């Protein structure tokens, strides 16, 4: 870092303060937002941080002028936060930033219109990001990471500011999404419920009026929740909504959505095109789709085994595991078709031994009892109607 003169530091700080005051005076939400985006590492903020390190008495500058001092409660902690951030002390940076945010929220509450929503978004985002980083720092120091939790409760407060009537309500969904991110990260997804309720039960505000990006994010997370609950139709609907509204430019986001949408679609019997999987680099689903197509139970199992960790983490493992039955069905269907080719009149009578033999080809040891049990599952799919245990024959009602 090049040497920074005191005068230059002073100039930078004053410049920032001026811009801050101007942004508020002109109700310029975008500019204000830029002034808060601490983790964006923009050159202007970085240079400001350096200036702050050189010019330690920024508070005096703030207090000096009436114009700045009224924002002192926001700016002073923000400066501290920026300084700490620059020095790599993320825990302190988070603490100071939360203080600044708190002060800003107080101000925001008093503003009639929602002009500063942009800035608020940035704050909500920054507080989450800073909290995550601070937690990482804490964890690496062997302390218990708790900042993210604190950020969650802080954002809940912000949500309270926005959730009422009026122009600010538009921002509620953004904060909700940040909350989702935090909750999913913390594994406290049950906390999402209260937020969802307040979003979905509010009749005064049509969901469609929210910004699209927030809608997509919201649908993505709620869709994931439905996946966890194994409510596949609802999950399908939400995730499809997210997919169709997601900007095509956001490939990473589309991929995230597909990561959950594909298992959901699979479990309701819709297979994705290979092109899609490859386009979005979701190769872990390749074998699963293939197994479903071929009725290859072995392939499915190995695919699950292979990617177990990944699936477990993303939470789709249990969903994919349930595909086994479909693979089984596919297998039986194949047998049925073969039988039909051989002898159409007896095709509906399937000997269980045949199934066992087929499974053996797949190197899966399964005795008749288990096959019988699996057959039960198929009844759900109206594949077979009944089995006679002694004759070891299954009656297939398929076609």
């Amino acid at each position, binding site marked *: 870092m090049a040497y920074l003169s005191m005068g230059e530091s002073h100039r930078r700080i004053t410049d920032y303060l001026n811009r801050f005051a101007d942004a508020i005076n002109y109700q310029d939400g975008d500019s204000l937002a830029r002034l808060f985006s601490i983790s964006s590492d923009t050159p202007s903020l970085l240079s400001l941080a350096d200036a702050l390190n050189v010019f330690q008495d920024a508070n005096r500058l703030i207090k000096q002028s009436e114009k700045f001092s009224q924002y002192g409660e926001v700016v002073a902690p923000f400066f501290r936060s920026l300084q700490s951030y620059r020095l790599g002390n993320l825990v302190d940076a988070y603490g100071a930033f939360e203080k600044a945010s708190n002060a800003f929220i107080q101000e925001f509450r008093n503003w009639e219109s929602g002009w500063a929503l942009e800035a608020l978004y940035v704050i909500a985002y920054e507080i989450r990001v800073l909290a995550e980083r601070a937690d990482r720092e804490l964890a690496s120091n062997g302390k218990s990471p708790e900042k993210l939790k604190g950020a969650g409760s802080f954002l809940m407060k912000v949500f309270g500011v926005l959730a009422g009537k009026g122009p600010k309500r538009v921002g509620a969904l953004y904060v909700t999404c940040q909350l989702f991110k935090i909750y999913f990260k913390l594994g406290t997804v049950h906390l999402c419920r209260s937020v969802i309720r307040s979003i979905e039960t509010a009749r005064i505000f049509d969901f469609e009026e929210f910004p699209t990006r927030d809608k997509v994010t919201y649908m993505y997370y709620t869709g994931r929740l439905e996946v966890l609950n194994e409510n596949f139709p609802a999950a399908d609907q939400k995730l499809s909504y997210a997919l169709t509204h997601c900007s095509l430019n956001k490939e990473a986001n589309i991929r995230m959505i597909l990561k959950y949408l594909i298992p959901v679609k699979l479990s309701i019997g819709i297979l994705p095109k290979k092109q899609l999987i490859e386009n979005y680099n979701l190769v872990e689903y390749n074998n699963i789709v293939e197994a479903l197509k071929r009725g290859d139970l072995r392939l499915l199992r190995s695919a699950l085994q292979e990617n177990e960790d990944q699936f477990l983490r993303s939470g789709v493992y249990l969903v994919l595991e349930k595909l086994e039955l479909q693979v089984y069905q596919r297998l039986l269907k194949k047998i049925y078709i073969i039988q039909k080719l051989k002898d159409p009149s007896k095709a509906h009578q399937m000997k269980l031994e045949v199934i066992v033999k087929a499974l053996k080809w797949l190197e899966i040891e399964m005795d008749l009892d*288990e096959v019988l*049990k699996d*057959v*039960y599952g198929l009844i759900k799919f109206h594949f*077979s109607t009944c089995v006679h245990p002694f004759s070891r024959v299954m009656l297939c009602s398929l076609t």
Partner: protein
Amino acid sequence: MMNQGVNAQTVAAADPNSLESRYAINASQGQAQSYLPSAPGSEAASWTVHKVEGYLSQDGVPANASYQHVQQPEPHTQNVQDGSYVAPLSSSSSTGTASAPQDYNSYTSYSNTTDPYSAYSGYYNGYQQQTNNQYSQQQPNPSYSQPVEAYQNTGAAYQPNSSFQNTGSYAGTASYSTTYYNPGNYQTSGGYPSSGYNNQPTAWNNGSYANYTSYQYPNYTSDTSSAYSSVSAPATYQQQYKQWPEYYSQTEVTCAPGTEHLSAASNSNHGSSLPTVSGGYPTPTNQIQPQSLPPPPPLPPPSLTPTWRPETSSSELPSMQPGGAASGAHDNYWNQPAPSFQTHLAAPTQPIYQNSLDSKTSYENFQELKTAPQGLNSQYPVVHQVSQNYQSTLPTVPSFDARRVSKLQIPTNPRIASNAALGIAKTEKDSYAANSAPRPAYISVSVQKPNDKMSPNNAADPMLKPTMLPKSLRGYVERAFGRYKDDDAKRAACEAYMKDIITEARADGTLYTRDWDSEPLFTVPDSLSISKANIQTPTHASIPNYNKSPVRRSKSRWEPLAEEKMLEKPVSASNEIGKYGSWDRKTFSGYSATKDNSLSSFRFSGPQQRTPSKSAQRPMKRQRIVNGTGLTNNDDDASSDSDKEQSLTAYYSGAMALANNPEEKKRRESRSKRFDRGQGHRPDINYFKPKNAGPANLYTRRASALMLSKSFDDSANQAVEDIDWDALTVKGTCQEIEKRFLRLTSAPDPSTVRPEDVLEKALLMVQNSQKNYLYKCDQLKSIRQDITVQRIRNQLTVKVYETHARLAMEVGDLAEYNQCQSQLQILYSEGIEGCLMEFAAYNLLCVILHSNNKKDLLTSMSRLTPEAKEDDAVKHALAVRAAVTSGNYVTFFRLYKSAPNLNTCLMDLYVEKMRYKAAVCMSKSYRPTVPISYIAQILGFSNAADENGETELSGLDECLEWLKAHGASLITDNTGEMQLDAKASSSTLYMPEPEDAVAHGDSSLAVNDFLARTT
């Protein structure tokens, strides 16, 4: 609360308010105006106004009419004081001033200094002595008697006066005695006072009080028949006796008066110094009353009138040792003051005050107090006025006084505390003395050691007073301290230790018999020094500080060392001592400290006031600790060896007071035990330190300390040690192997807690026991409890929890199992060895089978390490999970049969559901019938040995029963084999209600079992 309470009391109780109101007409205007303005800092004008106010109030307080009469004529000056006083005790103060100026020089000074109270006393005195007219009027008090209640109230307000009287005596010994007597006179003489008095005692019901009254009465009456004294005395008593909290508030009031005094003093130069002293003194008297009533007499010694001595003696006798100690303190106090006082009188105290004021930052606080709308404010305003009169700086001074007063109050809370209060008063005096007189003077005064059995007469001659402690002991103490000259912390520890030793010796009665010269010196472990200080302080804090160690004084260490050295242990005694020391030095820092304390106490007393101290609100336990730490810290702030010494002496005296108490002995024993473990606990203590660290916390700390003392008092001498954190970690002594579980509702009693080795035996016993689960569960829970309270976290802990978890699983007690499981996970994560895999499998099974929470399942699955997945038990659990999620009942029951460890038990809980699912499945998918034998085999009914025909059969029967119970329709086919009619059953299968369901949801608590357990 306290402040308000005080005000309310003073006002309400102390008719002063009512009087004021009555007079209000007269003074009300002045008061109201003066009051508000005065707070900010009214000057001369405010003074006058105040005077008026005070006047009014005074009038109201005493015998309104008579009093007013008197005052009005005489004391504008009084009014001034009153003004300052007004809020708290305005009436009295005003009177005091009035009287002071008039007749008695000494009195006047007193009255002025004394605040309202002093004013009163002075007033009264003045009345009686100076202004007979007034006095007579008061005495006539028949009017008073009528107001008895009101009078009492006023009495409360007056208390300060009484104290003032004492102070008054201080200023002028002769005068002092007179004043002192006057109070007595008042009480006795004043049919009025007596009546009021009586009322008070009854109301308060304090035994000590009663004694006190009796004491004073007789003495006083004999001495001074003047009604006035009586009035004042009752007032003080009432205040004190009133609920302790109120009591505090009252003391505060007195303090306020004290402040007023200061201000007054400033106005009337000598008067101010005296007043403060007197103020302090009065408080002590109040506090002491139970015990220390005698002490006041000792105080007189300087002035000592023959009459006094007798009184003191009488009082002392009843008061016993404590009284002696108190008296000793007084003596010390007096000793110093006596010379110094006079000097003070001669030399205007103002400069001192100003200094102190300036030095104190407390001023701000003070202002805050002012802002406080309630009583405190009122008092403060008064003070302010006074201070204004003094100077701009002076305003702070009044606050100081108030603070002092508050301090005094605090000590007063506990009876013992009374000593402390005295000590404070002394300190104040000392400080005054120091200020006015060069230290040499101070030194010259020999400290009297309060002898338990010393006759008060000795006190008469301050110089001659023997120290309380035998010479040899003194030498011993010095030796002990000498070793730690340069280590403050150790010194502190040493001091605390010494206190213990001496108190114990006293308790044993070996104080004088023991060969101190040959007594081995104890060593103070470094760690102990702090912890001890902390621990000890809480217990004795209120008492100990006051007495100054005679030994040290005799050596006259005061002069050179005092200023430089820091107080350490005294800290515990704490604030008071510290203040004291500071006073002696003439350093106002000490003074300020006192003020601070008083302030803090103020806050405590009055919740209404803005309490800066958060600690006050904290739970008592913490406070105590905090205090301890705070005290230590304080030492650093400003403590001197002299302070330490003082504290020591104070401690001794306090200890003496306590020594008689058998409870105290016990406590001490336990305390000394604790010291043995002091090091181990140190971390805990330190933990609290940071919070309190920093000068900013001074107030809080002190306040909390005060709170503690209060709490002690309130808790009626409950064992303080019990609240110590460390004390909560019990070291068990119980040797019984068997113990019923009983949920703790209080701190565990070591005698009922089993140590680790016994617990191991107990665990073995349970493991080998043939009794039922309820018994075992009960035993295990008690073992767990003992482990918890002893903070045992090792393999034994794991074993106990594992054992319990297994037992609970065996009987399906999921609630208990879950408790154990969650504890085990914590223990495992701490790296304590155990059956990690086994319980990981259990955990998995539990999640799968019982919680049905997908998210939990996913997380616990993803948490499994690769090694864990290789473990048989975990593998099995994972297989079970797969079977369950895929509904594979065949696999499930196979796994059921091959389950390792106790997995079976957990699966047992899921078997019913699984069987039902299977039955539904079969009835839907099989046509037309399914043989029962097949079902029995698949559903694991013949789980024993398949090759054994009998069990096969019984499994079949069982299956039949089960199917029937679930509504399956069964038919017998041609070969006589039972078949399940799948088609018919598919619509009739149902899940029956569990037969053993009980209302409370836990069949294991069925009545029969429960009864069996109790027998």
